[in-house]
């Protein structure tokens, strides 16, 4: 099989279509090439975001001005947030691994609307350039924070409009991807691929797609209103004209809280693929994971108020939002239980993706539990807008989605490129990254409890120790990141050829060649009655 595979030159990477070279990629409607286009553009923006984050941590190395003024710091955390949220973690797993794997996992040759899929990527690129133009041109980079809170978002003199329109277009790209995935999952499953046999990654993409579709338009119209407010002064969020800025916060979080689940659900899906493969065991509680996925997608809509406990809302509303916040933690906890039970008595094969997956569970637990601390009303009053919040969402968003992204990258790498990476360097990169991550964000929990506010370039001397540790952590983490990325880039070009199924996985992508052929399958597969995505003997 292996030789035949190497001899087969017409895989999706080497295929030559109507257009040659770079055009053959940026005009390709092949879902695998589009997945890689997303991978490269997202990793580019991720690197920019990491550099901005490094600069912020460097500024906080010592009290007072270290390398930048307050205004520069405000712009830095704003652009860092906009890039990381809208361009990296929201599209992250669905656009890269979803695009690449969804059709293969359900036994299809492509997504339902390949041209629309390409359009999504082009919209993504347009959104990226719009946001970047806000940074480069005009009177200063945006300084509102990624949340664009009213009324400051239409009072600030910085160049905010392109950033708002950029975020709107990125949202539109996300909607189209979600729409495409929903139709694909409904219409393109191969014979015998019942809903009860879908791999869990597909199920989480399904839940994610619904959120993308049903939550994004609300933030879209909210951003349009802020832009119109800025341009014409329509008054909707302007207290001077009778508008209500708190209403902006409600509308913003009605989307942006579900968006957190856009980020984390596919991450949970990837982990649910990796754990059974490396435990060589049927996933524990397949149906419970599906039910909890859909429960998260649903309850996630009802908790937005917990971002606004101190912004002014009725006590009754606070109780409900707090209670619902605790309820939404239950399905996540069910998943953690399922992953750990899957590993129990499994024949565990310790490889790089498993290191990432297990460390994901660890940081996700801390991130999730600290979320409950913030979700309880009394603690929230003390911790609101402190470094504790920053630590919490970096543990969830970066520790959750980021770790799962690298887990997925190391898991599916041999399938995507048909080559294997150097496992020693990959493990070393993971370890250094993990240590750096803990050193970077853990002190922020402590600093937040002590009262250090977020979004300030300066702090009291009492907070110096924790900040030094945190900044050192950022250097360690970036060292690990550089090792990981260099190893993957090098291996994609020069690594030894990978087998079709190096991890002995049971899902469909492990039955096609590595890298897959242009149309994935020579013949559309048929799933037998007793076959399943996790049938390990």
């Amino acid at each position: 099989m292996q030789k035949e595979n190497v001899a087969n030159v017409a895989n999706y990477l080497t295929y030559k279509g109507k257009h040659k070279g770079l055009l053959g990629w940026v005009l390709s409607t092949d879902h695998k090439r589009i997945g890689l286009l997303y991978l490269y553009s997202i990793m580019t923006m991720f690197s920019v975001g990491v550099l901005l984050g490094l600069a912020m941590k460097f500024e906080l190395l010592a009290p007072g001005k270290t390398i930048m003024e307050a205004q520069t710091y405000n712009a830095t955390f704003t652009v860092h947030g906009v890039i990381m949220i809208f361009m990296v973690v929201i599209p992250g797993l669905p656009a890269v691994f979803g695009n690449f794997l969804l059709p293969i996992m359900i036994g299809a040759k492509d997504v339902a609307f390949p041209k629309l899929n390409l359009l999504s990527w082009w919209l993504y690129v347009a959104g990226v350039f719009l946001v970047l133009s806000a940074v480069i041109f005009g009177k200063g980079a945006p300084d509102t924070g990624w949340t664009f809170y009213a009324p400051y978002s239409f009072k600030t003199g910085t160049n905010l409009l392109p950033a708002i329109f950029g975020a709107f277009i990125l949202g539109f790209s996300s909607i189209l991807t979600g729409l495409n995935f929903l139709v694909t999952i409904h219409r393109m499953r191969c014979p015998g691929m019942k809903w009860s046999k879908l791999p869990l990654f597909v199920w989480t993409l399904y839940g994610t797609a619904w959120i993308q579709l049903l939550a994004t338009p609300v933030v879209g119209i909210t951003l349009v209103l802020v832009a119109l407010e800025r341009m014409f002064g329509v008054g909707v969020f302007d207290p001077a004209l009778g508008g209500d800025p708190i209403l902006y916060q409600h509308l913003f979080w009605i989307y942006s809280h579900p968006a957190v689940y856009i980020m984390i659900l596919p991450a949970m899906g990837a982990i649910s693929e990796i754990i059974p493969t490396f435990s060589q065991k049927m996933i524990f509680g397949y149906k419970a994971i599906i039910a909890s996925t859909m429960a998260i997608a649903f309850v996630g809509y009802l908790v937005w108020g917990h971002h606004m406990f101190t912004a002014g809302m009725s006590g009754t509303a606070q109780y409900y939002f707090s209670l619902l916040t605790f309820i939404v933690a239950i399905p996540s906890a069910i998943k953690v239980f399922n992953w750990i039970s899957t590993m129990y008595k499994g024949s565990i094969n310790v490889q790089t993706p498993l290191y990432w997956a297990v460390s994901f569970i660890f940081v996700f637990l801390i991130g999730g539990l600290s979320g409950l601390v913030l979700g309880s009303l009394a603690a929230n009053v003390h911790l609101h807008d402190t470094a504790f919040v920053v630590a919490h969402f970096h543990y969830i968003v970066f520790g959750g989605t980021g770790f799962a992204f690298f887990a997925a990258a190391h898991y599916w790498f041999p399938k995507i490129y048909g080559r294997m990476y150097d496992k020693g360097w990959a493990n070393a990169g993971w370890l250094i990254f993990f240590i750096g991550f803990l050193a970077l964000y853990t002190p922020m929990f402590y600093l937040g409890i002590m009262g250090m506010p977020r979004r300030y370039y300066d702090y009291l001397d009492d907070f110096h120790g924790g900040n030094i540790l945190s900044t050192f952590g950022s250097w360690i983490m970036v060292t690990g990141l550089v090792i990981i990325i260099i190893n993957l880039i090098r291996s994609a070009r020069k690594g030894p050829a990978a087998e079709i199924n190096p991890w002995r996985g049971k899902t469909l992508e492990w039955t096609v060649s590595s890298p897959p052929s242009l149309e994935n399958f020579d013949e559309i597969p048929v799933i037998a009655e007793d076959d399943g995505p996790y049938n390990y003997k």
Partner: protein
Amino acid sequence: MEQNAHGAHTHYDAEASKIGMWLFISTELLLFGGLFIVYSIYRYLNADAFHLAGEELNITIGAINTVLLLVSSMTIAMSTSTLQLKKKGATLGLLAVTIIIGLVFLVNKYFEWGTKFEHGIFPGSEHMLNEFSQGEILFFGLYFVMTGLHALHIIVGLIVILFAVVRIQKGTVHENRAALLENAGLYWHLVDLIWIFLFPLFYLIH
């Protein structure tokens, strides 16, 4: 782009296109849903001012536009039927009528907005800031945003219909491959439906 080389990329699934369109329509409803929420909240908070401001609008033009859009929804629905009956000429004629009605709607809207502008009623105008209460400012702010966004959707709808006309003329959309026209129709009905809500909210409720 590699369509000819790919069997998979040329496959045609009318059902999938229709599901896709319905999903897209649901996102459009949510987009306007956000605005409807904003409208209801401010109407609740400024009931009297909204009443007063609503009387400024011209019910006649609003009613004419409502009738126009309802008729255009009928003509585009008829065009999908005539396409099934292989009457290409009738289909194209009905679509032309739809497009003309859409344009007349926009012309009406232009004059309606123009009158408001002449009277100094537009966001940020001196007249409004000095003479109007906060509730009235909000009413007209929302009026321009919501009818403006709706007009934008009319324009997009017209472009989609025009696209369908070209494809029908070229023969790539026909009775066995009608998804594009059907989706254009669905989208046009959505635009119509949103107007059916906008008309009473701004013109009729007093």
